[in-house]
């Protein structure tokens, strides 16, 4: 793992590009997975959902604030019965759309202990983040997250500790190879 010393807030300087959903093809994996989670919320549905997030509930209020400016949330998680049900080539195919100059890999972690790999990509847009993508793979699980839209880092920071989101996400930047 190679990490340089810039906090994530420094990533907000790159050029603008219209925010849009990452095009991933899940067909092969879906057929092999034993369990699948599929969350697909486009802009209008997302805005509709925020109306049902309570302002009185502390956690929901923070999520509401965070997702208010988003244009889409897409999550796909595949669970497999045994290791080796998906290949490195499958994971590579998910990385491919993120190899464009718009995207930058900010974190890449790998654990030899449990074979877990997490990669975090950020799409810069204007003065903010225009999108976030996560590819997380474990021997029996593969998860892909794509958040489209301007992510308010203050709101993200406020969400620290809630729903497993870390406090003040000060991850460091890895230069794109």
């Amino acid at each position, binding site marked *: 793992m190679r990490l340089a010393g810039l906090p994530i807030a420094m990533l907000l300087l790159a050029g603008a590009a219209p925010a849009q959903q990452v095009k991933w093809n899940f067909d092969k994996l879906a057929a092999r997975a034993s369990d699948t989670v599929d969350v697909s919320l486009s802009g209008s549905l*997302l805005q509709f959902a925020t109306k049902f997030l309570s302002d009185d509930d502390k956690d*929901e209020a923070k*999520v509401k604030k965070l997702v208010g400016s988003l244009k889409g949330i897409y999550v796909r998680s595949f669970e497999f019965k045994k290791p080796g049900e998906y290949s490195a080539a499958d994971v590579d195919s998910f990385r491919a759309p993120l190899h464009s100059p718009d995207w930058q890999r900010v974190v890449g972690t790998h654990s030899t202990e449990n074979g877990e790999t997490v990669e975090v990509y950020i799409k810069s847009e204007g003065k903010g983040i225009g999108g976030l993508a996560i590819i997380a793979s474990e021997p029996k699980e593969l998860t892909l*997250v794509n958040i489209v839209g301007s992510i308010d880092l203050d709101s993200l920071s406020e969400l620290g500790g809630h729903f497993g989101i*870390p406090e003040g996400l000060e*991850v*460091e930047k890895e230069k794109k190879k």
Partner: protein
Amino acid sequence: MESFEEELRSALRRCEPSPDFAERVLARVSAAPVRRAQHPWVPWLAAIAAALLLTVGSLEYRHYRGERAKDQVLLAMRIAGSKLNKAQKKVQMVAHRSNS
């Protein structure tokens, strides 16, 4: 046997109606009282009830869709958060190792 057949033939022979048959039928039809709803407000009440049912149904469906979308948002944030958390922990662990 023959007489029976004669009777049958006679009974079933073609018989033309009288010339004013059609007029008489039409006259009786127009003279017959038209059956109307006992209460004129019944159709209105039925329409209002249907509209109300439709409104309540669509509101209920909207609420169901909203709650479902909300659950999906919370699930998505939970999954995204947990993955970020793992990455952050790993980064912190490596940073801690390199500092010590």
